[in-house]
């Protein structure tokens, strides 16, 4: 295992070269990765929104956004600017404080979860030992924000939307956590870096999706439900609930919900690709190619290329999944609330439990394939 590119060490050393004390150099370094991830996730949202518009247009045989930038690529930016300049209305009978805090509580945990998303072996904010567990814990806070905004809006549709969102995420959190647990059991770790490294070495064949096909399907369905994407977008089912908990929101507060839902979408796609599709691993491992050409792992240019391929691969898998999710939205009808809850509690939960049991059994029987 080579240490790879140590950006932090190099940065701090070079600042110390300018005569700064070590503490100050570290303090300057610390906000940088967070800032990069914040900006990166916002850009990822813009791309996801653009994809949603283009793919939906293609599904309906329209052209979609075309004139705002090349291929309409600036359309989401225009959306964002419009929302920033819109009037921020708080309904007269609404609860002012809860109405303001609701969107924040929805958005903050989602952004915090990017803490554990790795784009390469050393390219993440922090390799927390908790890893995926931290993500599950953080995503369980989101329903509180939804309930808060639903209640504070003082509107029947909002309240119903908030309650539906909560019921939905309570129901699907458990199969999601059980699917993750099966992965953690195979990788002997909850850390996202360890999970990806456990899938590395055999390229396409080593990915967890082959070892956990049921877990993959369960996780994907549960993640769709957690993101409130069709066919599980009941909290904002427009024919029944106007826009659910977002009904009374406008301007920047609505923009926060919008941003939050798309960040959550990209985050879920990222986590599916990390947990099941090998994360930053290319279908043909880079290490294999470099060793056939007799290039050492510690060659600086090779490390830069490996890092770049890692980021590229993660994003490629993520956006392939986002594309699939958007396609689902424009092809599959919405389920009813009772069907949704039945699917969660009576089908996914038992299947996830059986999957966990089967994984434990297979791990004991074939430790070579299922992680000893």
């Amino acid at each position: 295992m080579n240490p790879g590119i140590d950006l932090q060490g190099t940065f701090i050393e070079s600042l110390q070269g300018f005569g700064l004390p070590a503490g100050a150099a570290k303090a300057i370094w610390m906000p940088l990765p967070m800032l990069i991830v914040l900006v990166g996730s916002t850009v990822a949202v813009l791309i996801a929104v653009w994809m949603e518009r283009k793919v939906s247009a293609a599904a309906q045989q329209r052209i979609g956004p075309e004139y705002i930038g090349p291929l309409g690529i600036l359309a989401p930016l225009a959306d964002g600017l419009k929302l920033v300049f819109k009037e921020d209305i708080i309904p007269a009978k609404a609860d002012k404080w809860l109405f303001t805090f609701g969107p924040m509580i929805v958005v903050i945990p989602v952004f915090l979860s990017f803490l554990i998303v790795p784009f390469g072996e050393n390219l993440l904010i922090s390799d927390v030992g908790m890893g995926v567990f931290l993500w599950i814990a953080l995503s369980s806070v989101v329903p509180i924000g939804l309930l808060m905004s639903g209640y504070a809006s003082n509107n029947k549709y909002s309240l119903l939307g908030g309650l539906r969102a909560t019921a939905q995420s309570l129901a699907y959190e458990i199969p999601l956590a059980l699917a993750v647990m099966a992965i953690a059991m195979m990788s002997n770790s909850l850390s996202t870096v360890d999970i990806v490294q456990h899938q590395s070495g055999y390229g396409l064949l080593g990915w967890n999706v082959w070892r956990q096909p049921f877990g993959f399907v369960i996780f994907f369905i549960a993640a769709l439900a957690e993101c409130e994407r069709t066919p599980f977008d009941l909290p904002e089912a427009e024919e029944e609930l106007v826009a659910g908990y977002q009904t009374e929101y406008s301007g920047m507060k609505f923009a926060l919900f919008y941003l939050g839902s798309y960040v959550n979408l990209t985050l879920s796609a990222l986590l599916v690709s990390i947990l099941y599709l090998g994360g930053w691993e290319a279908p043909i491992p880079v290490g294999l190619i470099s060793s056939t050409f007799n290039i050492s792992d510690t060659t600086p240019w090779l490390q830069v290329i490996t890092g770049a391929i890692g980021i590229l691969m993660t994003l490629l898998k993520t956006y392939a999944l986002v594309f699939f999710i958007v396609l689902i939205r424009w092809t599959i009808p919405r389920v009813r609330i009772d069907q949704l809850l039945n699917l969660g509690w009576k089908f996914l939960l038992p299947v996830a439990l059986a999957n966990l049991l089967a994984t434990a059994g297979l791990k004991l029987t074939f430790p070579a394939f299922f992680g000893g």
Partner: protein
Amino acid sequence: MNLAEGVQIVSFGILAAAVLISALGVVLLKNVVYSAFLLGGSFISMAGLYFLLNADFVAAAQVLVYVGAINVLILFAIMLVNKQEEYAVVKGAGVRQVATGLVCLGLFALLGTMVVSTPWAISSATPAGDSSIVTIGIHFFTDFLLPFELVSVLLLIALVGAIVLARREFVPENLSASGEDEALMLPERQREMVSSRDDN
């Protein structure tokens, strides 16, 4: 004092203040919904304190269980009931509140003196940090195996009990004149007689 220590002290101050203020809010505010939300804030600040103590698994579990499950359920229950009730002023409320305050202060003083006077055996071992899950897991399946299994049985009992309470089977006892089971009928206003004939 280096950077890390400074950050620790400042965040301890902020978290402690958040715990205290939100906990006081839970008790003192009149609106039940505010109390429930502040309870969540108090739980999250507690999780932050656990993070400061290098117990990140406990912190994440605190957020998942207390905020993500218990507090959400409390809020869910409050909002499903959604009863805007004006509480009648109780006679002699002032005396009662003073008495409650005294009891609470006494309890606080008792616990405070206990905390201060007990000689705590503070371990000098380095905190487990990231490997804390492994340590906890080993303890669960060796020396704490019996309590762990007993707790799981307890949770199973609670689960079965909740299902039994929620799925009450109505035994048909009193049948109405038309032979329908009254327990299964929803209390409904008698509808006016409308002609069912199709006029077209």
